[in-house]
């Protein structure tokens, strides 16, 4: 009798386990904001799936600021990378300009790149890139040649992130700005209309992702790109 009861419990447990739903998200992505770049038309700009995006932190003249930027970058990269559940992208720090895709700098430091063809904008934080062919955005982004002594032939740098040096002393500001700008680096080509989101325009209200920010980046990396850097 005891054996039969044991076997019955096993069978019922197996049935209960087997009848559960396969792994599914609790909700599909519905709450997002527009992420497409407004070029000649709405275009999806993002790195190819599986890309490692290498960011070089320009040291500059102020060591304390360089350390602040490096720390904020590592934190921000971890936040965004945590949304790449299935290897959609991976943001890492590059050891030199010649192994980087993106250069990040404080605005007071000279740019270690030739920016004459694509001049960085001026804001608390700004991500700058230009199209190789303005009439054909799908042709890709214009490279920023490194200035000597780095190899000026290297054409891998496609974006420059500039953070206003006056923002450095403000507690938490570097974290918020750099996390926000990495969202643009990944391809979020607009600002969220919702003031509570990291990717809202102006000074970011937070240094973490809102649920809407997370949904948006996840959807971006599961949408066919029109433009890849």
């Amino acid at each position, binding site marked *: 009798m*005891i*054996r039969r*009861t*044991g*076997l019955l*419990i*096993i069978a019922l*447990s*197996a049935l*209960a*386990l*087997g*009848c*559960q*739903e*396969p*792994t*599914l*998200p*609790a*909700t*599909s*992505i*519905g709450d*997002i904001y527009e992420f*497409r770049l407004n070029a000649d038309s709405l275009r*999806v700009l993002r790195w190819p*799936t*599986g890309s490692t995006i290498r960011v070089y932190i320009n040291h500059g003249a102020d060591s304390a600021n360089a350390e602040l930027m490096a720390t904020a970058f590592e934190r921000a990269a971890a936040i965004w*990378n*945590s*949304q*790449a*559940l*299935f*290897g959609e992208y*991976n943001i890492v720090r590059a050891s030199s300009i010649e192994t980087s895709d993106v250069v990040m700098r404080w605005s007071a430091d000279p740019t270690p790149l030739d920016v004459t063809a694509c001049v960085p904008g001026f804001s608390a934080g700004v991500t700058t890139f230009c199209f190789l062919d303005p009439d054909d955005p799908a042709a890709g982004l214009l490279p920023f040649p490194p200035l000597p002594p780095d190899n000026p032939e290297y054409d891998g740098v496609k974006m420059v992130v500039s953070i206003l040096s006056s923002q450095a002393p403000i507690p938490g500001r570097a974290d918020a700005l750099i996390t926000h700008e990495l969202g643009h680096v990944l391809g979020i080509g607009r600002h969220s209309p919702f003031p509570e989101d990291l990717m809202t325009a102006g000074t970011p209200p937070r240094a973490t992702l809102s649920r809407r920010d*997370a949904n948006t980046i*996840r*959807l971006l990396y*599961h*949408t*066919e790109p*029109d433009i890849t850097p």
Partner: protein
Amino acid sequence: MHLTVVLFVAVMLALPPAPASAQVRFEVSAGAAGTGAVVRDPIATGSVRDSIPGVQDELSASFATAPRLGIGVVLPMRTRTEAVMRVSWSPSSMQVQEDGGTRDVADVGIFEALLGVRSRVWRALELSGGFGGLYFNGDDAGPFSGGADIAPVLEGGFGAGADRAGHRLHVRGIVQLHRFNTDALQNARISGGSVVRYGIETSLTWKGGAR
């Protein structure tokens, strides 16, 4: 984990006590195992798809078919029935299937510990069943950042065994049902669910052993 405890108690109640003279035997096994989908993600709602062209249809992830190696101890219970305790390991990877094809996203070692029963049902044919736990040891990134839960698992098997040179050789197909969830999936509001794992294996049981 409560299900595992219930199953453990159930099997202990179901198994007859081993005779005092029962001889413990040792077993090694080798084979291959893979899974059905462990994650199936429809990505976006219909209204989002309508407003943004190019949204991917669906993403699904599974564990790649990989070698599965094990060692175990076998305790005869009756003439045709024996209890088997086994640990095994499979060096697999998580693969994602999406519109653009299939790609590996993480290396994963799948460790399992199983307690079960194997019985000769007709001539050389054998049935087996058991339960235990699976542990997924993945890179601390992507779906495995923050770690994975130990998953309760149920296994059923069907195969054949034959005595050769004083040892017993088995060949069997197995089907497992297990749970799968990780901290990263939970944080992304992706709920855990049941997964079917399947495999084929051969094992060799030494006739000699410790009393």
